[in-house]
């Protein structure tokens, strides 16, 4: 139905989307997820020609929509879009919002357009609001009207650009249930969303976008339960991390402590967890200290909000060496503290580096 090949978009020197190739088949529901600013909305806007791609091609049912002879208005009728900010006409009633397109663009009679509009309003549960104006409705109701307005044009595909982002949590469900219903009825849809549970339930396929590319795509079971790539895993498990590089034994412990405390505060981790992290880092640095004349050490603290899992990873350059196995430790006080604060300690040699990974005890969170 939609075939996208090598699609790119630049704004000046800024590349927001590069070399996107994918296909959306009839009846498919494709969710597009990923961090903010990674080109998800730009992809939808390019499909609807609200943005003109810098390179690549888009074919809809075999028609090249970037061809200058293509009737863009006709394409937009086939492929309508629902926006984050509803974009209803505020000077028109709900009913008029739904009928203006079919009357003016499709040549439908007013009577037929109104009958269809009322039917669609019933579908989204808002028939009694037909004579209201948009500013008399809640955000959730406005978005449902926007979806009904979109349906009034009888599109073959609907593009949803973060349809619930502007809504408060109480209104998200009413909008999502309307979209779920459309999915059940076989409507082809591409949905940019931050609602992960919704994306998992409603989609046939999920595209994970990062840094302007489709970084990973697959069925929802793969993307949400068994993501294959590192960035997808980090995003799905909501892993937030802090990394610090130490390349000298004269590191500034207090500057590092301040950054770790700021990280803990940002993730709303308990004060005790922050205390234990500082302790763990200091003990590790003391053990690594003799090696810091010759090796570079990267310390990463990674917190998975979803799994409530806090990890500390020490990655060091140099010859194969596990510093905590070192028999030259002056005493075992530091190591005892480290073992008390952690649930597991794993050492491995990976890509020419020594990697020590600590899972911090969950009862400390």
């Amino acid at each position, binding site marked *: 139905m939609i075939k996208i090949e090598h699609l790119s978009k630049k704004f000046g020197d800024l590349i927001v989307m590069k070399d996107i190739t994918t296909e959306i088949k009839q009846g498919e529901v494709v969710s597009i997820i990923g961090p903010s600013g990674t080109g998800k909305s730009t992809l939808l806007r390019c499909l609807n020609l609200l943005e003109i791609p810098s390179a690549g091609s888009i074919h809809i049912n075999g028609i090249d929509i970037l061809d200058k002879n293509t009737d863009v208005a006709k394409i937009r009728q086939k492929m309508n879009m629902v926006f984050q900010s509803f974009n209803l006409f505020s000077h028109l009633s709900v009913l008029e919002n739904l009928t203006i397109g079919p009357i003016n663009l499709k040549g439908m009679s007013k009577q037929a357009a109104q009958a269809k509009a009322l039917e669609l309003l019933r579908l989204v549960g808002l028939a009694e609001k037909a004579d209201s104006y948009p500013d008399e409705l809640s955000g959730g109701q406005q978005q449902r009207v926007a979806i009904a307005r979109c349906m009034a044009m009888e599109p073959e595909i609907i593009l949803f650009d973060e349809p619930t982002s502007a809504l408060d949590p109480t209104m998200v469900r009413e909008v999502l249930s309307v979209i779920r219903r459309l999915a059940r009825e076989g409507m082809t849809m591409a949905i940019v969303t931050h609602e992960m549970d919704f994306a998992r339930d409603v989609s046939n396929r999920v595209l994970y976008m990062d840094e302007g590319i489709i970084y990973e795509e697959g069925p929802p079971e793969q993307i949400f339960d068994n993501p294959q790539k590192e960035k997808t895993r980090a995003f799905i498990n909501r892993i937030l991390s802090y990394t610090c590089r130490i390349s000298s034994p004269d590191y500034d*412990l207090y500057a590092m402590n301040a950054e770790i405390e700021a990280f803990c505060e940002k993730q709303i981790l308990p004060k005790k967890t922050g205390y234990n992290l500082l*302790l763990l880092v*200091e003990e590790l640095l*003391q053990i690594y200290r003799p090696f810091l004349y010759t090796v570079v050490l990267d310390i990463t603290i990674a917190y998975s909000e979803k799994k409530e899992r806090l990890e500390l990873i020490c990655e060091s350059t140099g010859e194969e060496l596990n510093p905590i196995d070192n028999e030259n430790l002056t005493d075992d*006080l530091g190591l*005892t503290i480290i073992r008390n604060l952690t649930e597991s300690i794993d050492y491995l040699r990976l890509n020419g580096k020594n990697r020590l990974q600590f899972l911090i005890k969950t009862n400390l969170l």
Partner: protein
Amino acid sequence: MDLQTKIENNAIIVTISGRLDAVTAPEYEKKIRELIESGNIYMVVDFEHLDYISSAGLRGLLVMVKLLNAKGGRVCLANVNENVHSVFDMCGLTALFKMENSVAEALAALA
């Protein structure tokens, strides 16, 4: 780290505030060594304002105990907060140090 001292009931009360870590422990050890060498062998260390301790700090305290034992002296810690106490526990050092809930109780314990 800040370290203040005063004499009371023939003992020296050492009030330590801030952090006892890899950065501050050498300074702590130096000052304690000076105090002991100048004859202060009954000591209360008030931890009320000590926020943090690491193994480096514990080593400083162990040196203090060793020096005092050699001179027939004694030490009692006062007002050890929960975070600091947990580090003693982790290292199995709680039994090695006498700890009291206040400076007054610590002084009494030394008498």
